């Protein structure tokens, strides 16, 4: 054949990608594994000729009580466990409602996609401004302006809450992060779920109509099972994204990862890895490997569960 003479040509086309992948993808996999097991590895130290012994000290350091990893792990787990079900449920509800209306459907679909095309740091700063209290007195009794969110809640008779300011509580901070992350996660999930709903064969619904099946039953017996591959996809990507949460928190709280004048850290696992970079790459690598294992295990569990429950 014509092409058999020029087999080397394919490698010519691949050359630029292969060279870059070797340096920035393949080597990192090997090297990160290597330095995770070199006790106390530090980049500058290695350049200076220091040698490190092989061991698991980086891992024990990460898991040490004072390294801050435990807090980061708890924050990340909490954020994931709270935001994934909430955003999936809301997205499903919105997608089902969107799918059952005719006028304005396209317009609303566009509106719901809006948060996707945003900068998560920039809009995080808008959320910061909305929850911010201006001129809060030290005893937290009076303020110049309680902020728009507290004002809106006040219309329903609620007392103002110190969401993110001086001496705000851990759960208040958490609530703000959950609201922002859910708001941010909705568009992608709605897009996927609505696409799934629109591809369900109308005949199933017609059959249900003939049997005059109640709406709730149609939903649980037809819609959810036929949508289950998309639901599984949305949940799995949601979990992966949740474990890698970082920039939305930087958007609201800045890269200190804590509300001003509070002691509780809002750091996440990814934040922990970046904090260790530049001073202790061994520890950063160990934490990154732990993160990888967690994501891998959770994804496998998700796949296993969805394989049992999903109808393809």
């Amino acid at each position, binding site marked *: 054949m014509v*092409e058999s003479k020029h087999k080397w040509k*394919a490698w010519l*086309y*691949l050359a*630029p*990608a292969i060279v*870059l992948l070797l340096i*920035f*993808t393949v*080597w*990192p*996999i090997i090297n*990160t594994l290597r*330095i995770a097991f070199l006790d106390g590895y530090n*980049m500058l130290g290695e350049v200076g000729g220091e040698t490190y012994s092989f061991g698991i000290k980086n891992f024990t350091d990460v898991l040490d009580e004072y390294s801050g990893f435990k807090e980061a792990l708890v924050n990340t787990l909490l954020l994931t466990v709270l935001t994934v079900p909430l955003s999936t449920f*809301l997205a499903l509800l*919105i997608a089902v*409602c969107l799918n059952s*209306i005719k006028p304005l459907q396209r317009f*609303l679909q566009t*509106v*719901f*996609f*809006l948060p*996707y*095309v*945003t*900068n998560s*740091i*920039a*809009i995080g*700063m*808008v959320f910061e401004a*909305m929850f*911010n209290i201006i*001129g809060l007195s030290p005893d937290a009794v009076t303020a*110049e*302006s*309680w902020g*728009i969110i507290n*004002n809106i809640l006040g219309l329903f008779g609620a007392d103002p809450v110190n969401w993110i300011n001086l001496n705000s509580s851990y759960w208040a901070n958490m609530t703000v992060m959950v609201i922002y992350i859910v708001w941010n996660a*909705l568009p*992608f999930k709605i*897009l996927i779920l609505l696409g799934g709903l629109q591809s369900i064969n109308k005949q199933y619904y017609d059959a249900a109509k003939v049997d005059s099946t109640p709406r709730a039953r149609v939903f649980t017996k037809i819609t959810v099972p036929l949508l289950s591959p998309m639901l599984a*996809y949305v949940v799995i990507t949601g979990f992966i994204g949740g474990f*890698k949460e*970082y920039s939305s928190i*930087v*958007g609201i709280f*800045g*890269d200190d990862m804590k509300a001003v004048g509070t002691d509780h850290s809002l750091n996440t696992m*990814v934040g922990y890895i970046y904090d260790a*970079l*530049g001073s202790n*790459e061994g520890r950063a*690598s160990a934490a*990154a490997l732990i*993160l*990888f294992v967690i*994501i891998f295990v959770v994804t496998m569990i998700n796949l296993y569960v969805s394989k049992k429950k999903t109808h393809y």
Partner: protein
Amino acid sequence: MTNQVTLQEKNLQTVSAKQRVVKIIVQVLLYTFLGVMALIIVFPFYWMIISSLKSTVEYRLPVPTLFPREIMWGNYVEAFSAANLGRLFINTVIVGVVSTLLSLVITILSAFAFARLEFKGKNALFAALLATMMIPGELFTITNYITVNNFGWIDTYTVLIVPFLVSIFYIYLLRQNFMQIPNELYLAAKVDGTGDFKYLCKVMIPLSLPTLISITILKMMGAWNSYVWPRLVTKSEEMRLITNGLRDAFTDMSGQANIPVQMAAVAVVSFPLFLVFIFLRKYIMKGVSRSGIKG
């Protein structure tokens, strides 16, 4: 007899009337729910824009105004100087354009090799590349950070561009598109003595334009939204990208910060994304629904 029929008809009529009422109630509920949710989705954008146009005095009123009494365009001028947005904007455009162009070339060449050319170990190599997509990016970042330090690339445009030029996801996306182009076209071109490269440029690229546009938009948005990597590998403020400037310029959380100026800066950064959203939404949605990759 006749009496019975009319009774039945009456029953039917009441049933259908009942159904109609239920249907209307359901529709009202649907639209109310969607309307409220849509308001929640849009509200932050609305708040960003009106806050960016208020004076500090007006912004600090105990009862907030829903529309600025006096429109302060000056906030935008101040935002540009406070966050050094002009310089960072130029940086971001340079990094975005150069990395998009180079990335497109690399992606096209490798997708073509995987889609059309025959070579030993093609499928194994492609599968191995796809497998690396499961690994969280942070794992690569650590060693890449060390590598670029050793290369002496800190504080250059190179460091912001080169490490992310190859995206396996883009190669995958384009390869799928290339594979859909019928093989007959390729064989016909071979018979005519058209070379591979000419065939790629004249036939495959024009036929895959929508995918290439999707890739371009996602890549540009990636540069526009990148925060972590530039912060790691740049020491001087002048070499950072726009999102860094935005966050770093406004870290005063004492409650005394000039929020209208801050919101003006946020609006400036968000505005190009809105334009992309309005005009190129369909390409983004297409790329997104196949990936789940943000930016």
